[in-house]
């Protein structure tokens, strides 16, 4: 498969991914499995690797699929294709914002959108909590939470509250504690 085709396919995926990496999965599946790049079970493996390694899932998937079809240059073109729509669109929006940031309509829009963005981050926090400490889909029932994970949560939360050191240290500490605790 030519590098230009790889770039074009991932450009299309990047362009139609709206609202998070998970939204890209059906698209990726359609392009990669439907297009005969990888088999269905290879796709599942790729997804598992992409979710359990550092970096955005969409970028990991692009790198992996690109590497499978054309080695290292393939992973570079796939990743470049995936980020190109973001670069173009966001630079245009950022240009616009730098001229119109003080316009009353832009200010009103942002004053509504900011609290909503916090709500979205809170939802992300809830999503991670329900996948690590509470172990359930949406709202907590009774007695269905992981005691050791909850203990680790309390310890890390207390440490963070007291020290406020770099988030990276907590990720490392969490990973290390997880190996011995679970």
């Amino acid at each position, binding site marked *: 498969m030519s590098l230009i085709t790889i770039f074009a396919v991932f450009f299309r995926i990047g362009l139609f991914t709206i609202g998070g990496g998970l939204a890209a999965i059906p698209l990726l599946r359609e392009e990669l499995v439907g297009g005969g790049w990888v088999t269905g079970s290879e796709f599942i493996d790729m997804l598992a690797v992409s979710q359990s390694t550092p970096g955005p899932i969409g970028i990991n998937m692009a790198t992996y699929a690109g590497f499978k079809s054309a080695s290292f240059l393939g992973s570079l073109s796939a990743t470049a294709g995936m980020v190109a729509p973001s*670069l173009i669109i966001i630079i245009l929006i950022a240009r616009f914002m730098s001229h119109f940031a003080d316009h009353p309509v832009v200010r009103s829009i942002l004053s509504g*959108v900011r*609290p*909503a*963005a*916090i709500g979205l981050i*809170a939802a992300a926090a809830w999503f991670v909590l329900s996948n690590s400490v509470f172990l359930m889909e949406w*709202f907590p029932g009774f007695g269905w939470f992981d005691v050791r994970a909850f203990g680790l*949560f309390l310890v890390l939360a207390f440490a963070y509250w007291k020290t406020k050191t770099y988030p990276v240290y907590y990720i490392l500490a969490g990973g290390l*504690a997880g190996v011995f605790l679970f």
Partner: protein
Amino acid sequence: MIHELIDLYKIFFRIGLFSIGGGYVMFPMLRREMVEDRAWISDEELLDYYAIAQATPGIIAINTATFVGFKRRGVWGAFAATAGMVTPSLIIITIIAIFFSRLQDNPVVQRAFRGIRVAVAVLLSFTVVSLMKKTVRGALAVMISAGAFLGITWAGFSPIPILLSAAVLGILTGIAGRKKSAETIGADGDGAK
């Protein structure tokens, strides 16, 4: 100029390297590096970028990186930040694709990930509380935050209709506010700490 581009690349390399288990953890790290340590952008600006990154095409983490990079150093800044963000993926995934494609089945890796998810939950919870304290002012803003939270977790909406409704509410209160020249909801983008 070059120094700051290298700084942007390094910061986003670090963020990409430690964005484990989904892009969520990016926000606390970005906030620490950009708002708290360097004061390069304000909390309000970071929230604006995050909201726009959600509602536009592309991967949220990449959109946010592009936005922050552009804000600091124009087009080259956008490129430096985005390149930094994807470099760890390129290196790590390439190594995995060559050597061990069944890494995720390793029980030690799985246990480490359970611990990392707990740490990410801690970081996100503190970020939410601190952002609420600093930027959410007024009953309407609290209601929008709560509505967005419930819209995602309870009603299962996607972020885009939620952000669009919040934008419309913002415009409506803006119009109402100008009529009685009352204060607007939310915060003004003046980087208040």
